[in-house]
């Protein structure tokens, strides 16, 4: 794939990243937040692949594998926590989880 300049690919991944970030900031549902987090992580994975492809190394793809694995682990734990939170608080509204402040 040597037609697409690296900068375009990076730009795409940055846009995806920002979209994910916006999702985290805007959505109130915890599961939606976790989904937006996934988007962010995958955007960075895309950036790695693009960078790796520019240098012709496999390192980018390896990093993407690692990112994928760890994102999955993170989200797995996250969903478990969300389950417990729902049992305890009976809501998935992120803003209602503000018992500790100041």
């Amino acid at each position, binding site marked *: 794939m040597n037609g697409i300049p690296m900068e375009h690919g990076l730009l795409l991944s940055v846009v995806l990243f920002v979209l994910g970030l916006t999702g985290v*900031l805007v959505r109130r549902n915890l599961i939606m937040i976790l989904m937006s987090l996934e988007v962010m992580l995958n955007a960075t994975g895309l950036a790695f692949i693009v960078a790796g492809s520019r240098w012709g190394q496999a390192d980018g793809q390896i990093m993407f594998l690692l990112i994928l694995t760890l994102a999955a682990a993170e989200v797995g734990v996250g969903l478990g926590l969300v389950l417990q939170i729902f049992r305890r608080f009976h809501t998935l509204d*992120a*803003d209602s*989880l*503000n018992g500790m*402040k*100041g």
Partner: protein
Amino acid sequence: MIELLGWVPLFPFLGFLILILAGERLSKPLIAWVGVGSVAASALLAALIGAEFLNGTMQPYRLVLGVWMEVDDLSIPFGFYLDALTVTMLFVVTGVGFLIHVYAAGFMDDDPGYARFFAYINLFVSAMLVLVLADNLVLLYLGWEGVGLGSYLLIGFWYEDPNNGYAARKAFVMTRVGDTALLVGLFLLFTQLHTFDIQLLMLRATSQWTSGSLLPVAAAALLLGGALGKSAQLPLQSWLPDAMAGPTPVSALIHAATMVTAGVYLIARTHALFIMAPSVQFAVAGIGATTLLMAGCSALVQTDIKRILAYSTISQIGYMFLALGVGAWSSAIFHLLTHAFFKALLFLAAGAVIFCFHHEHNIFKMGGLRKAMPLAFWSFMIGSAALSALPFTSGFYSKHEILLAVFDASPGLWAAGCLGAIITGIYSFRLIFVVFFGRKCPVTKARVGWQMSVPLILLGALALLGGTLKIPLDSVFPVLFNHDHTFDLVSVVTALAPFVGLLIAVLFYLTHTFSAQRLAGSGLANQMRIFCFNGWGIDALYGALVVRPFKSIAKLNKNDAVDGIYVAIALLSRVGCSRVSASQTGRIRWYASSVALGAVVIIAIGWLS
């Protein structure tokens, strides 16, 4: 044995630690054993070391226990220096101190603060020992401050009465003025001569400085300032009469035998420096002479038994200063030794009298105790005889020696000294005649325990026979003139002066041939009496010059303008805190947006700089 020198100040310090940490839980006999035993151990060790030293070559011995502070090329060791002067001081502090401790074990018996008392007094003794043993000025200053602390704690021992606290504070503040002068003198010596070691300082001073030039005069004057504060000489003497608020053993130990002699010791130790500053040395003599007259006159009109003895102490130390001022170093130290004996004897006997009168101090409320308290009577007789320097008492030998040496230097000062001897005779026998003769006053208890009697007897013996205990100090001090005055006019007049005083006292107070009341009844005489009573108005002077202006300035700043800065800082912090903690909303999305915002901001800063 001499290598165990380090233990001499350590035993009382250990006593202090034990009593301050565990004193409340120990039984009274055990407290006494620890408190008195630690000083007894020190005394025994000091005696053995002293004997070993005096039987040897009397070469100065130095013991370094370790380095205390080390910065760059300045190294201050924990070093002790033993020579004949130190041995004399050790005997005084530990020997007389031990006897006073035994006495105190009986005197303070029914006081609830028994353990606290012995803890403080042990701390004091260990600080005093560090002071006399120190080989460098910094360690000496440590001991100096330590005795000041001990004195404060012990004067204000009965703290429930605010007057005692006031007296303690007054003592502390006044000696502080002197201490500051001493500290500045220390720094001056160090910056000019680059060492704190006393012997080295003296060597360098004599070789590098010329006699009478600015530097030695300044240094000596500053050291003198320190000595004046601790030894209660003019102008820093008015704390000592008020310090009688403390228990009598404290007055005996601190304000008669040891702490007030620290100034004399300091000047004697640094005598080489004073020799280099003749003007300062003359000032020492002048101050000594003036103080001894002033204090003598004040002692003449006092009614409180302890205040008479306090003014007497100031006066006697004036004699020591006088001796130092004319260069009779060993005579001054000899008088220090004998003064310790008889003054401690007098104070302890006064304590016995006060104890039996249930803490009454006014001598005119006592009378005719001769038969009821024979031990106190004879103690007072011996002590006053030595104080007045009646022949063949220990006081006679030391005071006679001083006055003869003074005559050689300046007949005017000698005349003052003789006048002082007359006055001393008057007031000391006035005390005896009023308290022990005359109309009998009832006594609440007449028996004192063995703890109080035995030290009185021992001190009485020392006061009588101590004249033979003269320790040769030639290895320390330069020997000055050697005029032989035995049996010439000067020495006869000197010897007879106290008898004049005794005669006057007999006439006024024993046979009542003349009446002191009628003499002091007329206007001028009464004014003079009040003037002398108030210590020549020094306190009033300080009040007008120092205390009142200070208080009015303090009142101006009542709302504490400077404090406003700190209040402003505190207010600013509080406001800052409340503003910033508003950012902790507890909401996840807010936190995440702060992360995002932070990222944007730092990238912006990174790109822009």
